[in-house]
């Protein structure tokens, strides 16, 4: 049955090439835009090396401190993460690292701007970096404040050309570091792993940050397995509540959470003080936007479809006369339309891959590596199905209601 519908659909599509071209253009352009958006979201939130265990990793990415008449929204502070958030039940390993800060270096009269991130030794165990050369620094390096650094491939090229960087020193932010490892570039949009230069926290020139409850640090918690995640979230909230605040008259509450990346995005976008994370709301919002965007193209396609079925009225008349039910006809037409949108989605995917490659090349987002992943492909299929049904249901319903006699005569709807 489906097979004959499919054959019929292909026949109909090939019959009027101009119309097929118009429809395909509409479908592929619509899905191109949506797929590029989906791929970019996936590039920000999806699992990507070195965050390959993101399904059992939570992060403390945001934190705020509020009092009767003031709120400070920033990132978690080092003191909170180091003294209050350690040893959460179910956490196998934890790492604390700073928000990247922009630093300047002047190797042989040139200027190089880089992002520098200070991390502990476990950072390299929670995140799975592959090393191009050398290896990570250790917890001992952090404790004793050894001036060692891991750099990314681009930084190696900027400082040392094509040569190996191991053992060489580079100066950043007025401090010298000996390079112990080189890792591939990580996209700017990946909050936890992104940096150009990584150095131990122990090398920091100041110590003020060690007393901050809210500050410029983040943490990742690697759970022993996925089932431990809810417990970790709850325990983190517990710790937030029980953390003593130095001046309760000024600030009396800490807000934040152990989140997935998407939870954090919901926290920052949908709440004022990071007090609550409602990922389901953000998801609904994104879906709503996608559907709203599809509205005009769907109307357009529905219009084209509607005028196309008119030319097939005699076929419909014959089928009706031989007893095809309205339901069968609706089904047939929807299948035809979905075949069309699937072909459009395939084209859209190709265009989306080209667009993403152009975005990656443009340098608009540092080290962008947006690709059409398997998940984006699944999204493409889902969107095409939805779009096909959205734009096909009205014409199909109209068609099924044609009177057999009128349809056979070929008069208007």
């Amino acid at each position, binding site marked *: 049955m489906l097979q004959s519908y499919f054959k019929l659909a292909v026949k109909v599509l090939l019959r009027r090439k101009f119309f097929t071209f118009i429809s395909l253009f509409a479908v592929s352009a*619509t899905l191109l*835009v949506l797929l590029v958006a989906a791929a970019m979201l996936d590039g920000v939130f999806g699992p990507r090396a070195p965050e390959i265990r993101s399904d059992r990793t939570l992060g403390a990415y945001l934190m705020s401190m509020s009092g009767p008449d003031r709120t400070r929204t920033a990132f978690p502070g080092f003191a909170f993460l180091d003294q209050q958030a350690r040893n959460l039940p179910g956490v196998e390993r934890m790492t604390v690292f700073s928000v990247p800060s922009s630093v300047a270096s002047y190797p042989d009269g040139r200027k190089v701007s880089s992002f520098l991130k200070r991390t502990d030794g476990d950072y390299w165990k929670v995140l799975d970096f592959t090393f191009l050369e050398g290896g990570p620094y250790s917890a001992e390096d952090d404790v004793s404040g050894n001036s060692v650094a891991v750099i990314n491939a681009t930084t190696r090229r900027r400082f040392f050309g094509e040569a190996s960087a191991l053992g060489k020193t580079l100066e950043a932010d*007025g401090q010298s570091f000996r390079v112990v490892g080189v890792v591939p570039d990580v996209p700017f949009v990946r909050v936890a792993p992104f940096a150009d230069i990584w150095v131990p926290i122990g090398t*920091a*020139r100041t110590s003020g940050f060690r007393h901050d409850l809210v500050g410029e640090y983040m943490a990742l918690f690697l759970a022993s397995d996925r089932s431990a995640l809810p417990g970790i979230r709850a325990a983190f909230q517990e710790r937030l509540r029980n953390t003593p605040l130095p001046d309760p008259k000024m600030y009396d509450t800490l807000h934040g959470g152990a989140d997935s990346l998407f939870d954090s995005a919901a926290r920052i976008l949908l709440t004022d003080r990071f007090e609550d994370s409602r990922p389901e709301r953000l998801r609904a919002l994104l879906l709503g936007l996608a559907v709203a965007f599809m509205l005009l*193209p769907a109307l357009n396609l529905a219009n084209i479809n509607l*005028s*196309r079925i008119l030319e097939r009225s005699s076929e419909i008349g014959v089928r009706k006369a031989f007893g095809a039910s309205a339901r069968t006809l609706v089904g047939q037409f929807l299948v035809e339309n979905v075949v069309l949108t699937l072909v459009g989605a395939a084209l859209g995917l190709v265009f989306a891959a080209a667009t993403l490659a152009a975005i990656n090349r443009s340098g608009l987002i540092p080290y962008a590596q947006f690709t059409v992943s398997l998940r984006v492909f699944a999204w493409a299929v889902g969107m095409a199905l939805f779009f096909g049904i959205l734009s096909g249901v009205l014409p199909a319903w109209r068609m099924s209601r044609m009177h057999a006699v009128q349809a056979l005569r070929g008069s208007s709807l």
Partner: protein
Amino acid sequence: MIRHLLKLVWNRKRSNALLLLEIFCSFLVVFGVATSALFVWSNYRRPLGFEWKDVWSVSIDTKVVGDDAWTPQQNELIERLIAEARSVPGVVGAAGIDNTPFGFETNNAGWTSDGKRLRSEAVDATLEVPTVLGLQVAAGRLFEPADNAAPWRAVVINRALARARFGADDPLGKRLRERDPSEPEERVVGVVDEFRRGGELALPGNLFLRLTRPGQPSDRSGRRILVRVEPGATVAIEERLVRRLQAVAPDWSFEVQPLSRLRASAFRLWITPVAVGAIVAFFLLSMVALGLLGVLWQNLLRRTGEMGLRRATGASALDVQRQVLLEQALLTTLGVLLGLALVLQLPLFGWIGWIGKPVFAGGVLLAIVALYALTLLCSFYPSLMARRMEPAEALRYE
């Protein structure tokens, strides 16, 4: 004629309803993109009010988060840094400011004066900021060295704030805000036409520059130093500058960025969403155009008999063409009217804010023109087909 055409449109209401909805949605899309593009453009054309060439912005990272971690010692250290920057060879002038020109961080002040709720951007600036940035005074004067010793804080306001706060009155010598007696008075000493700190594309608004007096714990100094350098200054000067600053404050970090670069990235951040919107809208409109063309063509084929009848009863070929075009224009008018009914709610509810009425009107106008152009262009070929129909052929159709 129009009434008759309306009837024709009405008779085909079921297939026309969807077309109408499509035109309505397209109108909204064009309106949205046209208005934002016009807004960006009109914003860009307003004068900037300062000179950014050969000025560098040095951000100071004090490794302390938040304002309540501020100490008078930091004020003093920043004063020393500004003095140090001024003494570097190749540097013409240096000044302290809280938020850099072309930056996205802003400090806003909200207060009530004479029963009016006012909001304004507040910029903390040292004495030399007007000189380093080349501000032009419109009334009164800019900061003077004597202001540094005054018991009140000298304030320079922009024209928009002068109008919002003082109306037609002369603002000079007046108090900007009524504040707690423990805080120093803010006295307006001058008015500038514009000082668009956020850059050419930032939103227009009220702004005041408030003098940071050295040695006053109440005046928090900003964490940025603006440095005017000699034209053609090189990286070597930048490196020397950073090393000298680093020597004065070894615990802090410094980052130098020419305002030209900050300006370029601010541009990119403002233009990118509009450009993406325009590209997406172009896609949408071209698919709508192609779709309309196809639908109208198809519809016309189905009405061949009707057209033939008109020709047979004496209508000229041109009449038939005109009928097709007018019908489409009528449908467009209905769609546009629907769109207008929705869009015009925005000014009624006061939701156009800083977009301003001229830009809004321009966006509406552009959308109307674009839709008529689009739909008439799409119906032109079908109408030509109608015109070229042979009456005898057309009547025989079916």
